[in-house]
């Protein structure tokens, strides 16, 4: 979390153990950037989080990636150096701005850092953001470790101003979230040059844009020359010339580790690629392999230039590359057989998917949804996507930020005879609603959709670590900020006053009643839940509960809540008088983890869940 006070940055020449995200942040500060904006998204989040702790730089959490890029662009027009960070799917949102600001070009240096979640650690898809460099005709720099993340960020600002172009800094999870040693430099300041009125440059109407288009392609040609001359592209030579490699980003590290003696052309200024230098390199080795994550972009460009290369024909198109992926692929290319692998198979262990937290307010929502019959739930992106999992199985679709709204409306309008009585519910979090959901709700209202929206307001961007947003009244520095009122907002979007309800998600009967009522009424309605994420400062833990063993009948109803503090101690089956076999699960509550939300008490018929008599939690640390 960002703190209200600025830290004192480490002095120049310090050697620091930094993640790629940390290193980019320090370089942004050292580059004299005056404005930086982002929407949180794994693995990019820490860049703005860390930047917000530096002095003398404006930072903000924007409501979405498109706005963040527009803010950075505005600052650039004002003559300030500007920075914007996002995860790969964020660029999809920001691309409308990107595809035209590439035409206007920039004034103050503008760097867009994009973090690709290669290997899908926390994303809905895997995409190669280097594609945007080709699409928008902007340069792409690809660092391979934290030091390069620092160095390339500085280089990106110089390049941006020299060619008046936005620069895409392509990061991956194995840059963002790898810590390594970095030597940092001195901060320079660049006062804002000021905005210059120039409508042919900044106002992109067809006539003006048509005159900018040729400049775009001239710029791209000039960038190709700069790439060919760039020190970021170099040959790390080797004596074993049977196979040479061209690699970008972290893949270059894997190549060097797997093939210490092979010639390696390491591309840092990777788009536009220095094709003629690569052609010369190709001629110096017997075979050539392009190693890049994810798409065969460079590979195809080399093939188009008539250079014979291997790439995705021998390497995986999906997921992260690593030395143990490269070695067998290259051995196959050389017709060699590697010694039989000594690697043992993993021992079988249950999966441990992420869970909702103990006492999470979403638990009540999904428990309730799991109890409602004949419902289709269009979901969205956030912690609450976990509602698709056990035990709730109460989320039926999820694709992109804010999509629950449009999907729900489509599920309503496209319903067939068989689904005539089906209730359509959309579930969306507060941040996601402000990011891209509001327009969808407006569409539901305007087009008279029969959709019940559950707006889960937990007052934080929960999934990425509880960042502040306009819903909780705190800015990136944790200082007070204007706070949006969701009730007024959805009414302003046209939902009728009688159809808007604010409900405490820990009160299951009320939530159930509201949900049942609203899903029966054939018009748009919104149920707003109003309890904070348990990981943010607004949450107030209460006294824990325990299970009175002799009263527990093993019905398992509390287990259906899905709280990770409830554990099954034993199972059995009994035969009912009617001969039917019933499975029983007897439980205990991990008192040290329980924060007393009281959800599990509500479905417990024998009232076996009671306040923990003596708090078993040991509070030694709280004295300090």
């Amino acid at each position, binding site marked *: 979390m960002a703190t209200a006070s600025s830290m004192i940055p480490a002095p120049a020449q310090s050697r620091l153990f930094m993640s790629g995200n940390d290193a980019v942040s320090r370089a942004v500060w050292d580059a004299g950037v005056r404005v930086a904006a982002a929407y949180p998204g794994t693995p990019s989040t820490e860049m703005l989080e860390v930047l917000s702790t530096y002095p003398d730089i404006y930072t903000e959490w924007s409501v979405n990636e498109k706005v963040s890029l527009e803010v950075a662009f505005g600052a650039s027009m004002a003559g300030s150096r500007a920075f914007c960070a996002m995860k790969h799917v964020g660029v999809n949102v920001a691309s409308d701005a990107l595809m035209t600001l590439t035409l206007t070009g920039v004034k103050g240096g503008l760097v867009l850092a994009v973090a690709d979640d290669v290997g899908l650690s926390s994303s809905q898809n895997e995409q190669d953001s280097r594609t945007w460099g080709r699409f928008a005709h902007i340069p792409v720099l690809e660092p391979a470790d934290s030091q390069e993340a620092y160095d390339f960020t500085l280089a990106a600002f110089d390049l941006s101003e020299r060619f008046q172009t936005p620069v895409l800094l392509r990061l991956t*999870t194995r840059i963002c979230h790898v810590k*390594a040693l970095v030597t940092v430099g001195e901060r320079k300041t660049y006062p804002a040059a000021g905005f210059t009125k120039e409508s042919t440059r900044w106002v992109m109407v067809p006539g003006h844009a048509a005159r900018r288009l040729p400049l775009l392609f001239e710029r791209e040609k000039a960038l190709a020359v700069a790439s060919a001359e760039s020190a970021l592209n170099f040959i790390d030579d080797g004596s074993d010339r049977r196979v040479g490699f061209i690699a970008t980003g972290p893949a270059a590290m894997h190549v060097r580790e797997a093939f210490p003696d092979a010639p390696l052309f390491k591309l840092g200024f990777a788009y536009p690629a220095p094709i003629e230098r690569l052609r010369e390199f190709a001629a110096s080795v017997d075979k050539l392999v392009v190693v890049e994550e994810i798409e065969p972009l460079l590979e195809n460009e080399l093939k188009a230039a008539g250079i014979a290369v291997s790439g995705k024909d021998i390497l995986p198109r999906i997921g992260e590359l690593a030395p143990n992926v490269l070695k067998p692929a290259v051995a196959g290319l050389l017709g060699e057989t590697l010694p039989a692998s000594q690697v043992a198979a993993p021992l079988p*262990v249950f999966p441990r998917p992420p*869970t909702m937290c103990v006492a999470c307010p979403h638990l009540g929502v999904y428990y309730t949804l799991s109890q409602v019959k004949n419902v289709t739930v269009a979901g969205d992106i956030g*912690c609450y996507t976990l509602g698709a999992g056990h035990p709730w199985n109460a989320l039926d679709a999820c694709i992109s930020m804010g999509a629950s709204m449009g999907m729900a409306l489509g599920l309503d309008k496209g319903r067939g005879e068989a689904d005539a009585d089906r209730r359509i519910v959309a579930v969306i979090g507060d941040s996601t609603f402000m990011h891209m959901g509001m327009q969808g709700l407006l569409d539901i209202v305007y087009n008279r959709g029969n959709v019940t929206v559950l707006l889960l307001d937990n007052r934080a961007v929960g999934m990425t*670590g509880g960042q502040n947003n306009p819903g909780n009244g705190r800015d990136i520095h944790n200082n007070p900020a204007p706070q949006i009122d969701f009730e007024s907002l959805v009414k302003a979007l046209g939902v009728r006053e009688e159809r808007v309800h604010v409900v405490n998600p820990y009160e299951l009967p009320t939530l159930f009643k509201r949900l049942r009522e609203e899903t029966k009424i054939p018009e748009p309605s919104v149920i707003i839940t109003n309890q904070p994420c348990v990981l943010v400062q607004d949450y107030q833990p209460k006294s824990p509960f325990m299970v009175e063993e002799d009263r527990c009948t093993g019905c398992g109803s509390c287990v259906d809540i899905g709280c990770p503090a409830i554990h099954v101690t034993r199972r059995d089956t009994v035969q009912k008088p009617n001969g039917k076999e019933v499975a029983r699960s007897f439980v205990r509550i991990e008192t040290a983890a329980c924060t007393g939300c009281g959800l599990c008490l509500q479905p417990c018929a024998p009232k076996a869940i009671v306040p923990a008599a003596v708090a078993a939690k*040991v509070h030694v640390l709280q004295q300090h």
Partner: protein
Amino acid sequence: MSETTNILVVGIGGQGVMTATEILAEAAIALGHDAKKTEVAGMAQRGGVVSSHLRFGKRVLSPQITPGTADILLGFEAAEGMRWRHMLRPDGQALMNVGRLTPPVVDLGLYEYPADPVASVRAAGTRVVAFDATSIALGLGEIRLGNTVMLGAISSYLPFPAEVLEAAVLKRFATRKPALLELNRRAFAAGRDAAANASAEELAAAVAG
């Protein structure tokens, strides 16, 4: 050990796995090593699996440990130690907390928790030093001391003196939470002793067996 030392620290979100790895890295860096640390932890806060890789030596290239090449596996939770056992090199050393944390999928009856993770890892041919770090931490009065106990346990297995790691642990608390300095010193010593005792028992059993 080879030129690069590979340490894999595993557990679940919230156990302090990443912090422990960070402290191990700080100790290695203090001795002049190059180091890289990485993990996939996007959803770690949600009780999911966390595996943190630390590589240190003269010069480290790839940040990830290649399966079958880890020198030491430090498991903060019994089943997690078992889950990652294949990452060890054939003669690698596992250090396992026997403490268990069952996930909802086990409580729901969808999956079984392994009967004896330590025995399973041993049966697969891996040397294991097993101890109850959870109980040691609770005995000292605070579950959160668990990661210092785990660091104490690994301290005798590193290619540098245990005191270097202890100093890295204590340095954190000296600056951030001085009141906890003594408690962490005790936790570190308790972890070191627990590993030594477990190792001696394992040796005795092997000799007797």
